[in-house]
């Protein structure tokens, strides 16, 4: 950290309580923030290149390895993209089971972030362990929620980390009704914990800030979006997911190994809980809408610090949705519908806990992947994170630097950024004369 009277630079070399390796760099001149950068220095991971030449059936298990927290999201976007390429629709109980699996991931990922990684910021603790001594009940509630989410993933996915039971066309094995029933008991208790969680986090003191985001999320005719929908935005975008590349572009910036994603002609946009919530509030059950209002949240929330409340509401939604799916479940006749590969391009877009996760695959006639493109949510949110940093820091520039730094770190954790997911290959250009 360096300081002089007119020019200051505040840096955090290694961000804590986020997934992956990132840094923060804030340049200040007088009373103005001149640059706010989320540095991502984690090495590129080459997943898109790994996929080329591999059989389509391997894809769900390879992409699951991109993230230990949201492997289901990668599997779901992948299987939908490949089924789209092969002209296959997965309906009925198989579709419901996929939705149930995704609920498990939302529950465990959001509960972990809300209580163990984000709440300590608002309550002034350095980490969840120190917080647990005084907020033990909340931490135990979060552990129970996480366990419930893990249980869903373990049953449907074979194991809780990097599940192995998802395939193009459905699953390798589907559960019986009797196997699902213990989950219902666990989820019933988890649902109560989720209600308490919403009320608890809604009572935190939030910095006052409203950001004029362009929200982007999936929107489905009937459901709060998980696996399907059109891509819509708060400024009129409404496209089929296949048209993503005509509206969005990725670009390289020097300080990040993750590509920045922008809306063509408009720039930064926001994906994730705040966007899903604002664009799909009417798709939430009435009880959850009422709870949101009761805790002071309207149908649109533009304060990034209150994303913790929206995440908690989404935990509650995922518990209720999972319970409804289990109650209605009748095992399908087959664990997977038949799939015939063909030369085609397919698109998949689902709502990972951190936001829209878009996949495109080109498949050859023999079923091998010719090309793959994966656009994860943290990559898409980078420009918004940097704009948030500027907006958050500007009104507090007269405060001590430790305070500014802490507030900016908190602003980054609002996104629950998954840096490891977001890193892409750096383009290397050689100029010879």
């Amino acid at each position, binding site marked *: 950290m360096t300081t002089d009277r007119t020019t200051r630079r505040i840096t955090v070399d290694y961000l*804590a*309580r986020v997934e992956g390796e990132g840094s923060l760099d804030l340049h200040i001149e007088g009373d103005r923030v001149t640059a706010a950068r989320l540095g991502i220095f984690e090495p590129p991971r080459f997943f898109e290149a790994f996929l080329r030449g591999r059989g389509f059936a391997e894809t769900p298990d390879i992409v699951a390895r991109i993230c230990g927290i949201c492997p289901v999201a990668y599997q779901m976007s992948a299987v939908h993209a490949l089924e789209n390429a092969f002209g296959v629709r997965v309906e009925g109980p198989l579709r419901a089971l996929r939705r149930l699996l995704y609920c498990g991931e939302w529950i465990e990922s959001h509960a972990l972030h809300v209580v*163990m990684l984000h709440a300590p910021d608002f309550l002034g603790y350095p980490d*969840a362990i*120190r917080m647990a001594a005084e907020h033990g009940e909340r931490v135990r509630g979060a552990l129970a929620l996480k366990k419930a989410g*893990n249980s869903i993933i373990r049953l449907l996915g074979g194991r809780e980390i990097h599940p192995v039971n998802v395939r193009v066309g459905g699953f390798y094995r589907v559960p019986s009704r009797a196997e699902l029933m213990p989950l219902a008991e666990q989820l019933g208790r988890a649902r109560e914990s989720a209600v308490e969680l919403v009320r608890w986090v809604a009572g935190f003191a939030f910095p006052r800030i409203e950001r004029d985001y362009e929200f982007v999320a999936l929107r489905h005719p009937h459901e709060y979006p998980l696996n399907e929908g059109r891509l819509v935005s708060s400024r009129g975008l409404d496209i089929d997911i296949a048209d993503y590349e005509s509206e969005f572009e990725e670009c390289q910036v020097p300080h990040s190994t993750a590509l920045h994603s922008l809306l063509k002609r408009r720039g930064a946009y926001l994906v994730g809980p705040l966007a899903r919530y604002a664009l799909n509030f009417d798709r939430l059950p009435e009880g959850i809408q009422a709870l949101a209002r009761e805790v002071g949240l309207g149908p649109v929330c533009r304060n990034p610090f209150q994303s913790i409340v929206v995440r908690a509401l989404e935990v509650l939604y995922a518990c209720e949705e999972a319970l409804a799916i289990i109650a209605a479940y009748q095992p399908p006749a087959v664990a997977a519908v038949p799939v015939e590969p063909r030369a085609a391009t397919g698109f998949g877009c689902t709502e990972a806990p951190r936001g829209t996760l878009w996949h495109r695959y080109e498949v050859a006639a023999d079923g091998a992947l010719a090309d793959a493109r994966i656009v994860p949510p943290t990559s898409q949110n980078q420009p918004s994170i940097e704009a948030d940093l500027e907006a958050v820091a500007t009104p507090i520039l007269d405060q001590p630097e430790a305070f500014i730094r802490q507030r900016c770190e908190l602003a980054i954790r609002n996104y629950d950024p998954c840096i490891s997911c977001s890193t892409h290959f750096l383009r290397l250009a050689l100029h010879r004369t």
Partner: protein
Amino acid sequence: MKRLLVLALGNPDRGDDGLGPAVAARLRGRLPAGVALRLCAGDVLELIEEWAGVDVLLCVDASAAQGEPGRIRRLDLAADGLVPEPALASSHGFGLAEALGLARALGLAPPRIVVHAVEGCHFAAGAPLSAEVAAAVDEVAERMLAEVAGFRRPAGDAAAP
């Protein structure tokens, strides 16, 4: 009689990380009645609630490579005064040390916690145990059985190990 839980940590498909499951395989069927054996290859945080009421937690796990593969260490967190330094740097960072730290904060940590650790050297996906770690499996299992027997001895008969 003290309530004992033996916890074997590790992923059998990740080279030397399979130490815990390998030791558990040696212990299975040889532990006295009433001593529970639990394996964990995933989320350690899930186990914390199960530790309530446990008097002695005996853990076995592979430790990070430090140049002496196969070296066996025994850490008595009460006797040695060792408190794991929680390092919640990342959302993937909830290991045994963090789980024990969290259990302590929640009042769920067993009064005695002993960790048997064997230093690994290879943790590649799909790899078997290295020769050095494989050679330590029987020794660790015997030490743990002796430790279980010591803790199960009636008070006053002999000091716990």
